[in-house]
C-alpha cells in the first residue's frame, strides 16, 4: 500500500485532534449550564449538568452491562446452523 495516498485518520495527530475538539465542545456545553436558564418540566432537568452526566453514565452503564450480557447470550456464529446433539 506504499503508493496509496495517506488519508485523514491515518495520521494519529488527526485522531487526537478530533478527541480534543470533542473534549472542548463537551466543556463548552457543560459550561453553558451556568449561563443558560432553562425552563424545565421536571425538577431533575434543572440540576446542573443533568443531561451531560446522564448521557455519559447511561452510555458507560450500557456498554458495561452489554459486556456482561455477552457471557450469558453469546454463542458461536454457526450456533443455529449446527444440527442438534
Amino acid at each position, binding site marked *: *500500500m506504499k503508493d496509496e495516498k495517506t*488519508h*485523514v*485518520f*491515518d495520521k494519529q495527530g488527526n485522531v487526537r485532534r478530533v*478527541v480534543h475538539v*470533542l*473534549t472542548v*465542545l*463537551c466543556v463548552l*456545553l*457543560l459550561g*453553558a*449550564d451556568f449561563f*443558560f436558564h*432553562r*425552563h*424545565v*418540566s*421536571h425538577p431533575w*432537568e434543572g440540576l446542573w*449538568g443533568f*443531561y*451531560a*452526566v*446522564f*448521557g*455519559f*453514565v*447511561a*452510555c*458507560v452503564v*450500557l*456498554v*458495561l*452491562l*452489554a*459486556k456482561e*450480557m*455477552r457471557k*450469558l*447470550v*453469546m*454463542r*458461536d*456464529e*454457526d*450456533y*443455529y*446452523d449446527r444440527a*442438534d446433539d
Partner: protein
Amino acid sequence: MTELPPFVPFYAAALLVAATRGRLRQAILLATPALGALLLLGAQEGVHWQLSFMDFELVPYRVDRLSLLFGYLFHIAAFIGVVFSLHLRGTGQHVAGLAYVGSALGAVFAGDLVTLFVFWELLAITSVFFIWARRSSRSEGAGIRYLVIQVLSGVLLLAGAVMHQRATGSLAFTYIGLDNLASTLIFVAFGIKAGFPLLHNWITEAYPEATPTGTVFLCMITTKVAIYALARGFPGTELLVCIGAVMTCFPIFYAVIENDLRRVLAYSTINQLGFMVCGIGLGTALALDGAVAHAFNHVLFKGLLFMAMGAVSHMTGRINGSDLGGLYKSMPITAGFCIVGAASISAFPLFSGFVSKSMVMVAALDQGHTGVWLMLLFASAGVFHHAGIKIPFFAFFSHDAGIRTTEPPLNMLVAMALAAFLCVFIGAYPWLLYEALPFPLDYKPFDGTHVLAQLQLLFFSAAAFTWLKLSGVYPPELRSTNLDAEWIYRKPAPRAIRSVGARIQAFDAAVRAGTLRRWSGVVGALSRHHGPQGILARTWPTGSMVLWVAVLLGASLVLYYL
C-alpha cells in the same frame, strides 16, 4: 379519476414490470410512485368506495388525515426503494417491491377490518421474496419463519375482527380500545408486526437475511403499517406506554454487542418503534403527532442507514463489524450519507429525528411519567451510541480492514442523496411535516432548552464512547450469535417437538407390536381349538356323547337325593 384507490396503480405496475425489461421497465418503476403521489394529492377526505359482501359492509378506500400522511410516506419510500434497486436485472424483486408497497397502501386506506386483513396478509406474502431472493439456506429458513409469523399475525387479526363484528355489529376500522378478547387478538396481531417485546424476532431475523435492496423496502414499510394501525385502533392505551418504554431499552444492549451491522440496525428499529408505541400509548394530541411524525422520519433515516449498509455489503460482500473498517477511504460519499442518517436517528438538532422524538419525550413528562421519561432518555443516549456512532465508526472508520473498493452504482447514491436531503430538510424545516400531522400542533422544536439538553446528552454520550474505546473497555466486535427470544422457537421448541414426536413414535410402535402379538396369540388359540387339528374341530363319536349324557344324568340323580 381521483377515486382510484392508491393500491391499484401499484398492483397494475407490478404486472407491467413482470412483462417488461430494460429501460421501459425502469421507466415504469420510477413513474409508478410519482404518478401515484400525484393521484393522492387530489384525494379528498371521506369514504370513496363501499360495498356489501356476504352481509358485511366493506370500505376498501377511506381517506382521512392519518391515512393520507402514511399514504404520502409510502409513496416517498417506494420511490427511494425503487431508485436504490434500479440496477437489479432480475424481475422478482421489482415486482415484489411494487406489490409490497401497494399492499401497504391498501392497508392504510382500508376502512374496515376485513379489507385490512386482506392487505395485512398480502404484505407478508409479497415481502418474503426479498428474503428468499438471497437464495441461501439461511435466508430460506429465515423466510419461512418470517412468513409463518406474519401470517399468524393476520390470522389473529381475522379472528379478532370476526369476534369484534359479533360483539359490536360493525367491522369499521376506527378506535377499538383494549377491553375484551376480540380487541386483545387484534392488539396482538398489530403487536407482532410492530415488534412488541418477545414478538420482535422476525425483525432481527429477516432484515439481515434479506437482499441489500430488499431490506430497504422491508425496513420502511411493514412496521410502519403496524404503527399506523395501532395509532388508529389503540390510541391512549396505557399498556402501550410500558410496552413502548421496554422496546426502547432492551434492544440497545443487543445492538452494542451485535456484529452484523444490519442486525444492529434491526435492533435499533425496535428501539425507534418503541418511541412511537410509547407516544401512541400516551395518547395526547402532542404524543400521537410525535409518534406519527417519528414514524415518518424513521422511514427516511432508517432507510438511509440500511441503504448505506446495503451499499457496503453490495460493494464488499461483507457486513460484519469485525470484517469492515476504513471504508471512508474508498467510499467517502456513502460514508457521508451514513453519517447524515446516523445524525438523524440520534436526533441531532437540525436533523429529522430531533423534531419528532422530542415530542414524545415532552408528552411523557407532561403526563408525569417520570420513569418512562428516564427510560426514553436512556434509550436516546443508547441509540446515539449504537446507531449514531457504532454503525458509521465500525463500517467506515475504526481500524483499516484493507478493503479497497469504489462507491456503489449511481442509482444507489441518488437514492441515498434523496433520503439524506429529506432528513436534513425535515430536520431544518419541520413545519411542512407538522402541518400534515393528524392533530393541530403548537410545538416549538428549536427552543434553547431542548437544543442544549439534547446536545449535552449526545456529546457526553460521544465522550463516553471515546473514553471507553481509548481505554480498551469497549467490547470488540466478535463473530458470534447472540441468543434472543427466537432461541425459543429455533432450539428448544423444535427439540421438544422432535422429542414428543419420538415418544409418540415409540409409543405407537409399542402399541402396534403389542396389538400384533396379542392378535397372533388370539389367532393361534383359535387355530389350536378350531384349526384342522383343533380340539373343537374333531368329529366326536356318538358313544362318547351317550357316555357324557349318562354321567350328567347320574350326577343330577345324586344331587336329587342329597
